């Protein structure tokens, strides 16, 4: 470019201490214990005797500047002008004075925010971009989450679950949303439809071929033009070819479905971290409110709430009661698709007589 450009300052990740609540700076590394005075509120006590009361509130994640400023106003009024955001995009206000907690909560609730999401509640659902921004989404994660949280708001506001429940959603099979106690994920059910006219211009064919996890794509010629073709018998409909090659359209208004997975757990608490497992598929991708997905999530939550013991995460609970009982308790069908056939699948088979009747 002709005009002289500004060189970036490669400062990287900013120091957080400059924006940290003074009591947290002061007691950095000296916290002693915490408890849960009420849902949405944590009390941390430092070895110095200092206390910090944290109030956690959920927002719509995708904030407009009005909402952001509203959150700032509340922070200025009650919380010394400092906030932080959690990994689940909740906002946290820290106050040193217990008396400020209730007014702060009222202010938040009056402004439409939802206080909760601590301890053994259903946490805010982690989610991704969807139709609002991504180039490959099969659904709109923000919409699914909004519709679902409308129905799970009580579970967010209260701490009635045996242990915390971490729900995640993702808007394509890439799964930027990660995995969780319950995950609502896109599952394509038909191979991509190829727009052969575009492939040659848009896609680097060898790297698309290389991207397929099951080697189902091969170079081909259609109408004399180089393109790609898919062995539909092999294709597992994962959608991995679509980002590097948009003419391999995988999203389909009807055949792109949702699937529900349970038992993912990243913490090392009790057992080692575990992967989530498929429990329901073929769930309609039904905007604007996706009622079928929500209904299944609610059935799972209810069975868990009724049957699990304190501190059992969903995976711990199922470990104890076994999968046959899980399907019984939730009324979900067990099909041949539940039997894994991906790498290492044998380890998922029951090589024992350990059976609950």
């Amino acid at each position, binding site marked *: 470019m002709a005009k002289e450009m500004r060189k970036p300052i490669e400062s990287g990740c900013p120091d957080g201490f400059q924006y940290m609540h003074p009591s947290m700076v002061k007691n950095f590394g000296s916290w002693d214990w915490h408890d849960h005075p009420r849902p949405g509120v944590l009390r941390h006590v430092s070895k110095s005797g200092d206390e910090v009361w944290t109030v956690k509130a959920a927002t719509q994640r995708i904030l407009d500047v009005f909402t952001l400023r509203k959150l700032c106003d509340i922070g200025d009024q009650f919380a010394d002008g400092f906030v932080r955001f959690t990994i689940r995009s909740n906002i946290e206000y820290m106050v040193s004075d217990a008396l400020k907690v209730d007014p702060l909560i009222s202010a938040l609730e009056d402004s439409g925010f939802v206080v909760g999401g601590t301890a053994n509640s259903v946490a805010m659902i982690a989610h991704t971009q969807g139709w609002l921004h991504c180039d490959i989404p099969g659904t709109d994660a923000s919409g699914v989450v909004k519709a679902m949280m409308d129905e799970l708001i009580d579970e967010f506001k209260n701490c009635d679950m045996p242990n915390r429940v971490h729900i995640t959603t993702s808007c394509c*099979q890439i799964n930027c949303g990660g995995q969780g106690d319950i995950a609502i994920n896109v599952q394509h059910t038909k191979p991509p439809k190829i727009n052969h006219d575009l492939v040659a211009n848009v896609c680097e064919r060898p790297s698309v071929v290389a991207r397929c996890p099951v080697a189902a794509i091969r170079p081909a010629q259609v109408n004399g033009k180089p393109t790609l073709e898919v062995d539909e018998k092999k294709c597992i409909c994962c959608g991995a070819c679509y980002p590097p090659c948009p003419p391999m359209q995988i999203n389909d208004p009807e055949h792109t479905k949702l699937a529900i997975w349970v038992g993912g757990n990243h913490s090392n608490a009790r057992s080692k971290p575990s992967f989530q497992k498929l429990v329901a598929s073929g769930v309609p991708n039904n905007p604007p409110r996706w009622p079928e997905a929500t209904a299944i999530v609610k059935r799972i939550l209810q069975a868990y709430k009724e049957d699990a013991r304190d501190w059992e995460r969903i995976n711990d609970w199922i470990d104890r009661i*076994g999968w046959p009982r899980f399907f019984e308790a939730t009324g979900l069908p*067990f099909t041949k698709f*539940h*039997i894994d056939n991906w*790498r290492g699948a*044998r380890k*998922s088979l029951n090589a024992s007589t350990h*059976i609950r009747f």
Partner: protein
Amino acid sequence: MTDKKQHETPMLDELENGPWPSFISGIKRLRDEHPEERINGVANDLLGQLEHSYETRKGYWKGGTVSVYGYGGGIIPRFSEVGQQFPESREFHTLRVQPPAGNHYSTDILRQLADSWEKWGSGLVTFHGQTGNIMFIGSSTDNTQHFFDEINDYGFDLGGAGPCVRTAMSCVGAARCEQSCANEHKIHRTLVNNFTDDVHRPALPYKFKFKVSGCPNDCMNSIERADMAVIGTWRDDMKVDQEAWKAYVSEKGRQHTIDNIITRCPTRCMSLKDDDSLEVDNRNCVRCMHCLNVVPKALSPGEDKGVTILMGGKRTLKIGDLMGTVIVPFMKLESEEDYEKITEIAENTIDFWAENGLEHERCGEMIERIGLVNFLEGIEIEVDPHMISDPRQSSYVRMDGWDEEAVKWFERQAESQSAAG
């Protein structure tokens, strides 16, 4: 003893030291003390060849083809590669003979077998090989037929060798064990004797083994060593004799009871109550046997007994060890129809595998290759959540038949409910 020159066996002699019974001393007895010269000679040359192996750290036997009239298998032929040096044991075949189910013997029948074997063989015998055969070790090619004819006349038959159904195994079970949930004896004989043709005439992709254990302790190692494992279990609540239980607690102490039993339960489904009584959450008991093993006087299997069937176990060769996995979570084995049903399951399995297994491919390796679901479809058994430890973990699967499959499940549920109701 003949005056033929005895081979020096300095290394083997070392195996006569020590308190444990020595197989070398046994072979030497045959060499030195047996009235029959043939046997002395065989034993002498056998020791000679074995000493040679110890010195050179190599084996010197090779295979070949030997069988009895009408059969294709059941004998492990051995010809010496150093037969010139050790001529009298140059042919040293092993006959694999099926023992009575449960390995019960009268001393009479043992003596009768010893007599026959002495007549035709080396005088060395093993009760039993790892697959469960009586192994009559060391016969010349000619004598195998004579020996077989003689013992076959009084009720003994060869087992398997080669790509065929093999000799089965069953635990002592109901004959002497309170844990037994099945008639191991009958299961064992029903299954293997349904396949005598497949035992004697090797024509399958590879070997196929049945093993039967009366309870999940699996004293027959069936889950790891059998293509089809049948294991006794129960479906209702375990039986608790609270008085006997409390007696145990008061004898051993509460702490001991908690540490050795309560906290060892894999599903944590036992509670020791304050009055020392025991509460079991039977729906979550996985029949692991631990508590029953520790306190057999107080705890026993329930009344509603049956078996679990697992398939595909084997050791290392080709793809690494495989444990068998659950194919039939539970079935009753009481009526003759029940026994017909289990025979049919075995037949369907062997048929499907015979058609679809590759050469030298065990049933478990085939399942691994084609996937459990295809195998189940092949033997016409429906999927069941008891077959898995965990559902699918990978989203890499095409599931456009989901709705149809879901319907099947609901229909089966409705059927079994209406059958139960």
